[in-house]
């Protein structure tokens, strides 16, 4: 079983009367690429700042590499971060900025700086001053800093902000490579679900400081994939018919009245006929399939309704 890299237990952060994080419980396992999705101001950055101790938690606790927050210093040595905008010294060059942090971290091998710059494709700009870099280059330098110390866990806050499409693809490939080849666990936040979908294998939807859904990529696919939505009075009876008459178990019971069937997509009439024949009261039956954005939107609305 994979070890836990980060676990939060009822993690809460309040700023006077405003609750930025509200009893957040998430678990990130070793090797995961964990996507944190939420609108601007949802609490993504606060969560990242809390687990990196840049801000103090108000309630709850968290574990890093199974160490509690009291013994974090050693665990933090295994983390690389890029939180909010990449911040560096404007008058130092790219390589001088990285050297400054390399000295801090006790890295003596210049090769590690070169490797990090190669990975983010900044070798040609290494003698440029930070203030003269484009936004995308600054972002990539932030990622270079995060991977400088060969960490086991990288936390990246909106790392694709300001990058052009080619840059986004390059960063995505780099992060995937780091995950696949080096086994690095990643926590990446974004408000662009479609981008995060291309890289992450676990997703956490956050809104108004609360986790509204945590699911794997397979589960997300299932939630968003094409299906036949069947609304009936008795889902138990209906599922028996689906299995017995239509020989399928490829369905999901959503609630007391709704079943999503992922087979017979071109033949909903046959499904309807079969259910009616067995005296099932079909309220409605229709084909459905939602985009990631629609799914996100639905979740947010459900979250708002429950608040």
């Amino acid at each position, binding site marked *: 079983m994979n070890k836990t890299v980060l676990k939060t237990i009822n993690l809460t952060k309040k700023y006077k009367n405003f609750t930025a994080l509200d009893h957040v419980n998430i678990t990130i396992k070793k090797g995961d690429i964990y996507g944190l999705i939420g609108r601007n101001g949802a609490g993504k950055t606060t969560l990242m*700042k809390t687990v*990196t*101790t*840049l*801000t*103090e938690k108000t309630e709850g606790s968290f574990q890093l590499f199974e160490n509690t927050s009291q013994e974090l*210093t*050693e665990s*933090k*040595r295994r*983390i*690389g*971060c890029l*939180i*909010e*905008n990449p*911040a*560096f*010294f*404007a*008058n*130092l060059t790219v390589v*001088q900025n990285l*050297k*400054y*942090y390399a*000295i*801090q*971290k*006790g890295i003596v091998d210049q090769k590690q700086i070169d490797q990090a710059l190669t990975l983010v494709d900044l070798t040609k700009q290494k003698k440029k001053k930070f203030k003269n870099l484009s936004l995308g280059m600054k972002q990539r330098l932030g990622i270079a*800093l995060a991977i400088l*110390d060969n960490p086991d866990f990288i*936390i990246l806050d909106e790392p694709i902000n300001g990058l052009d499409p080619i840059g986004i693809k390059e960063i995505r490939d780099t992060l995937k490579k780091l995950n696949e080849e080096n086994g690095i666990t990643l926590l990446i936040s974004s408000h662009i679900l479609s981008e995060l979908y291309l890289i992450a294998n676990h997703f956490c939807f956050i809104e108004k400081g609360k986790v509204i859904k945590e699911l794997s990529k397979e589960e997300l696919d299932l939630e968003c994939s094409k299906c036949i939505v069947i609304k009936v009075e008795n889902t138990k009876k209906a599922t028996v018919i689906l299995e017995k008459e239509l020989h399928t178990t490829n369905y999901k019971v959503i609630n007391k009245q709704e079943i999503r069937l992922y087979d017979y997509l071109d033949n909903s009439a046959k499904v309807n006929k079969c259910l009616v024949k067995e005296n099932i009261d079909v309220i409605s039956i229709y084909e459905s399939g939602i985009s990631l954005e629609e799914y996100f939107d639905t979740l947010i609305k459900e979250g708002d309704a429950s608040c």
Partner: protein
Amino acid sequence: MLNLIKADLYRVFKGKSIYIALIILLSLISISCFTMSPGHIGIAATKDTSDVIYDEELNQKLSDTNSIIETRRLVKEYGSYPIDKLQLGANINLYYFFIIIVAVVLVNDLSNSTAKNTLSSAISRKKYYASKLITCLLLGTGLILMNNYVGYFLNLIMNGTNFSSGILEITKLTILQLPILYGIISLLVCLGFCFKKSANFNSITIPLIILVQLTIMGIATLFHLDANHLLSYELQYILTNLVTNQTTTYLVKTTLLGLIYFIGFTAIGYTVFKKAEIK
């Protein structure tokens, strides 16, 4: 922590600010030695020492000339006084150079949000605070030594032994001033951690010395207290008095005051920083 200090020193010496500060400091010392006017040259000129070092006749002659060369000739002809020692009495000038050091080492890091890169890694806030304080103290000590000893040697070369008090005396005075100068550095570091942003830090620290003096004088007037007695424990006056008034009681009191400043401001700064949100 050693790595943090090494990294900060690397960054400071890669930047221009420290070199500009050194050039200004050396210029002030050189001008002060050349014009033979300790305490008159500087960003914060100290108490007028002309009454102590010039007699009436010389004062009259000096006021009749506008030429520096003539002034030098007249002063050399009439007598001798320890320019290097009196220069140390004007060491409050170093306060402004300490502001530059603290701004470069600490405030720049907090103001640019680069501190989050350090604090999100395996560095505790305690280590961060201590390393910044030590780096400022190291650079501050370097600046004090450079100011005092370069001043001593330049004065010796320019004005000769008649106007020099000797290297031992300079060393003794340097050691006596260190506690209060370290107290000033810890005050500035504390203010850096409290205000974080460069603009806030500068607008507080630059007029602080004058504000403290005005406040002391205001309190003395309001409560009919002896202003001179109160001012004798004010930073600028302490540095001047340590050169001219070295009674054992005063030395003990000012050393203790420096120590109290150092511990007090470090405790306040760390307490504020420990709970602060890093942006």
